């Protein structure tokens, strides 16, 4: 699976309260959540994001609450994948479980700039920054997580195996 898109760039410790503020958690409708994605850190995100675009951030992306509304809002915005130096653990498992592609790659997270055009191959972990001409490789997922991802997330995996 591949994705191509433009980069939205954020720093360290992007928390789930800025990804989707709790004042909007009185609903779980994807389209409602999408309208407020990243609102408290980047009010223009919703206006500017296009199908396939990519979020690149520093360490501990998605820290804070367990709200699955955070990866749901990002996915519903059309974001094709999130690349970060590291992910907070609940955001990490929520993304795998709902089928939002995420890649851990400290070098890419440090060097890629806002607005760069990327091409990402999820099966190999290859990240090509077409703007700078540089190529990076993210850590491949362990086999169990590969199977989860291939099943389309946790629901597909459980249906196939339990």
């Amino acid at each position, binding site marked *: 699976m591949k994705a191509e898109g433009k980069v939205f760039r954020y720093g360290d*410790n992007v*928390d789930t*309260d*800025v990804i989707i*503020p*709790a*004042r909007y*958690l*009185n*609903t*779980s409708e994807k389209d409602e959540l999408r309208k407020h994605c990243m609102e*408290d*850190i980047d009010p223009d995100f919703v206006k500017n994001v296009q199908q396939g675009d990519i979020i690149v951030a520093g*360490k*501990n992306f998605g*820290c*804070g*609450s*367990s*709200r*699955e*509304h955070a*990866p*749901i809002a990002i996915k519903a915005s059309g974001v094709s994948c999130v690349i970060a130096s*590291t992910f*907070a*653990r*609940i955001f990490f*498992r*929520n993304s795998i*479980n*709902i089928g939002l592609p995420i890649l851990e790659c400290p070098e890419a997270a440090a060097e890629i700039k806002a607005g760069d055009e990327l091409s990402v191959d999820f099966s190999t972990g290859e990240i090509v920054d077409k703007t700078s001409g540089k190529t990076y490789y993210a850590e491949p997922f*362990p086999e*169990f*997580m590969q199977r*989860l991802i291939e099943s389309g*997330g*946790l*629901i597909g995996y*459980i*249906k196939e195996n*339990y």
Partner: protein
Amino acid sequence: MPMTMTEKILAHAAGLESVHPGQLIMADLDMVLGNDITSPVAIKEFPSFGKEHVFDKDKIALVPDHFTPNKDIKAAEQCACVRAFAKSENITNYFEAGRVGIEHALLPEKGLVTAGDTVIGADSHTCTYGALGAFSTGVGSTDMSAGMAIGKAWFRVPETILFRLSGKLGKHVSGKDLILTIIGMIGVDGARYQAMEFGGDGYHSLTMDDRFTIANMAIEAGAKNGIFPVDDLTLSYLKEHNAKEPKIFTSDPDADYARVIDIDLCSIVPTVSYPHLPENTHPAKEGKDIKIDQVVIGSCTNGRLSDLEKAAAVLKGHKVADSVRCIVIPATQQIWLDAMHEGLFDIFVEAGCVVSTPTCGPCLGGYMGILSEGEKCVSTTNRNFVGRMGHVKSEVYLASPETAAASAITGHITDPEEIV
């Protein structure tokens, strides 16, 4: 193979002789928890798993505590969704308004978690039950839904950091000051994906309420779980709350820890985390210049009876500063009753505080104490992220109940030592 107590519990839950850090396992669950924010997503997904009913109606807890009593129409609809599912699946542990309390205070109080259990909750502060010697961790709604369907969850076995405690906390210093100090020391991702085990001779001196507060905020250091070894105090708490028979797991003396950090409890001082990360810690006595507009005393972190008792002891005979709103929120109905019978409400109301029904409300900027632009709040809650309690330009300062109460009196951040 020597193992830590977290590894032993996970091995037991996975039906394995032993496990090692990094191993991916499927574990049997003793309890699956959700609230009014996270359960509706899980309930909507439930039919996709193709199971007719939940795996065990006694091992699921549905606790509508975040935006209840219903704060608006949408919140009411989310609660109606949870209520209807609880009824159709005949869920034993569903708690309606009037009986509900903040989930992480309520489950231990009702004896629904015991030592050695493996628990998931669609709420990040589910790590609280590690205070009882359980493996307990926060997950998302899809994990909760899968847990309700098959009674299992996948885990990557975490490495463990041992915090070896010695000595005793001083007067007016609490478990909150200790955990804030630790987060300040290791950072908000200092224990990412790892277990935080609180051992050493010093842990015996920590009250159960302090242990709940400490385990509760393990997530604020990025941890998968916080955990305390079981001692006599744990066992008497479990007995008093009619919990199931405890399963006691103890870390082997030669267990492999990722790190060992020694902490002398005598060295901990009243501590405040400044905006906008819990790791941004400062001694409370250095906060004189920070004028505040609101104080919140409550939440899954610090809404227990001893928290209210300590706040009341500071407030007794004083008035909340004219410029401050002070909101007190007992975490459960039982705590509310006990606080009332002890006369704590007289102290709070005479000092000029609001006393609320149990709710998570202001902690996550839901309702019951939202901040306007530029306002500052000293809060006994657990997060001070941008916009957490309201306006994106408001500020939250995390502190203990005593520091919060002292600050309510003076109108600026205050070390409780200066008041009592």
